[in-house]
């Protein structure tokens, strides 16, 4: 995979939601994404990981144009989304497709598989009915669905097959980038492997870029070139996948990796189990956002937020003490 130019990028993105007062939550501004910048190169697979509520899905929706950021810009092939002409915006929507987590609620139960897959083509006004039919048939074959399933409804498919329909729909308009929000987390292990392989094949066949959101770090390690770890709306670490898993530079990443249940764990758990829950995004801690849960936190962490800085070649982390904490590693 040659890391070409940036296909999709975000510059200092921020998104806040106004929350109404409710018995459990006081009214206020919820900061879901705070000053996030990232770039996805052509042909690259970028993974975003973090606990629920860290803003990873909001970020995906901003990057796909479904949500408008309060601040910052989304750039597609160098052009800002907000400044696009109608034609450019329509091309952007065709070339950026999404795959969703729940294959049960992301397909219209009243539409046939063929109509679901053809819909992006119909909306884009591409081809005649006959040419669309042959296009849909060939896409169904590539994702591993049979011609007999052409007229079936979603309820006639299993979870894994529905996820294949979702992938086929995303591929229909020949996108250049696919954003997948937890594409395999609701599937059984044996089906999960099938879908991961399918995504990998599609990526190579169609020269796609992929943005994969997942809380499953072993999935991301397997398919991603690069992984960003998010915590409370910010990116705390961004690094090549292989390096991140062997020599991370942020205490949060260390704790996340240590929490994965392993079949072969050599020499016991590497780091202690993280305490407490993720704090409320309505009341983000001052200083480093991670400091209340961090085993290494010191005075400066309570007051001064660390910046995402280059720590090694192509390796970024936001921690005041990453060099001293992780110096023992090779």
């Amino acid at each position, binding site marked *: 995979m040659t890391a070409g130019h940036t296909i999709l990028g975000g510059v200092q993105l921020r998104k806040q939601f106004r929350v109404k007062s409710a018995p459990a939550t006081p009214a206020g501004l919820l900061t879901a994404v705070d000053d996030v910048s990232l770039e996805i190169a052509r042909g690259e697979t970028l993974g975003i990981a973090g606990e629920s509520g860290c803003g990873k899905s909001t970020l995906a929706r901003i990057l796909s144009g479904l949500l408008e950021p309060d601040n910052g810009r989304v750039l597609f092939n160098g052009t800002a989304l907000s400044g696009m002409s109608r034609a450019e915006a329509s091309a952007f929507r065709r070339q950026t497709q999404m795959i969703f987590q729940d294959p049960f609620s992301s397909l219209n139960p009243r539409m046939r598989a063929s109509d679901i897959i053809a819909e992006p083509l119909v909306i884009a006004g591409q081809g005649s009915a006959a040419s669309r039919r042959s296009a849909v048939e060939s896409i169904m074959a590539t994702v591993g669905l049979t011609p007999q399933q052409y007229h079936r409804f979603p309820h006639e498919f299993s979870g894994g097959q529905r996820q294949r329909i979702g992938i086929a729909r995303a591929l229909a308009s020949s996108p250049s980038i696919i954003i997948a929000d937890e594409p395999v987390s609701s599937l059984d292990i044996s089906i999960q492997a099938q879908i991961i392989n399918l995504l990998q094949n599609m990526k190579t066949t169609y020269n796609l870029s992929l943005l994969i959101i997942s809380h499953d770090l072993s999935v991301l390690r397997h398919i991603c070139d690069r992984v960003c770890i998010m915590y409370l709306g910010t990116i705390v670490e961004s690094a090549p996948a292989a390096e991140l898993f062997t020599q991370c530079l942020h205490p949060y990443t260390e704790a996340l990796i240590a929490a994965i249940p392993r*079949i072969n764990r050599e020499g016991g758990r590497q780091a202690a*189990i993280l305490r407490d829950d993720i704090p409320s995004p309505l009341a983000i801690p001052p200083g480093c956002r991670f400091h209340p849960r961090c085993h290494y936190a010191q005075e400066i962490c309570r007051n001064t937020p660390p910046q995402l800085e280059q720590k090694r070649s192509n390796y970024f982390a936001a921690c005041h003490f990453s060099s001293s904490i992780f110096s023992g590693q090779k």
Partner: protein
Amino acid sequence: MPALLDIIDLHTCFRTPDGIVTAVNGVSFAINRGATLALVGESGSGKSMTALSIMRLVPPPGFIQSGAIRLNDTDILALSGEQMRAIRGSRISMVFQEPMTSLNPVLRIGDQIMEPLLLHRNMTRHEASEEAAELLRRVGIPAAGERLRDYPHQLSGGMRQRVIIAMALACSPDLLIADEPTTALDVTIQAQILELIDSLRQTTDMGILLITHDLGIVAERSDHTCVMYAGRIVESAASAELLGNPCHPYTKALLASLPQNAEPGKPLTTLAGQSPSLSANLPGCGFCDRCPVAQAECRHQVPELREISPGHFLRCWRHP
């Protein structure tokens, strides 16, 4: 000493318009005090139905057709409804997957934790309230006394699961059934909850039936593992032995398909197809259609579960 829980040849069936479907097909296993047995398998393999059978909560049109379930040498299938109610929530407790739906949203959590105490331990409301606060402290909820007045929606997913565990522990059960207790939680919270269940097992000496699909959890948290496929146990062994020396083609395929066992970027080993529909009532091994080493005999007769090495049981024709 007899096992805490002993299940012998359990058959749980469902009456459907297409005939009788066997969801749990001749399952036997035993759990000792202080031990954790993991039940692994994909959706529809019968693991949750096995758990519900132990609680005698199989939803209609399902019913327990035959077999025996002994808890401390009492066959609970022979008990009356009233006797069973005295056991449920007291000698056997259950923790479900969904911390969002297994609490009553309109009752304060204190009242929900007090319910088993009032019912099974004949406490006064005052005693029960103090005991409930103590239980919340034991499961690691800060400011436990004040939390009793909270409603479920005021707590995070991890906190709710702690409340459910507190309820399950209220009467110091002999057996805790945990059905995918952490599937809905983040890995960091999952680690906290599993650690909590493990430490409670050590202090109370209860037995645990842990239902999960995560083989990493099996490796870290269980002593013995049974792998279920299409209603039957296909392999059963001490967890380290099972994961280190898997013998059933299904267990092997499950382990091989894990991203953490694969080289990054390389295609994962997959298992073609999907589990069979149970209503088909296939004559042979349930796995034969997806099995890479299946032969003619596999389609005609169900293999027996036999001991291939001490303590390691396997249901497969093809193993030498």
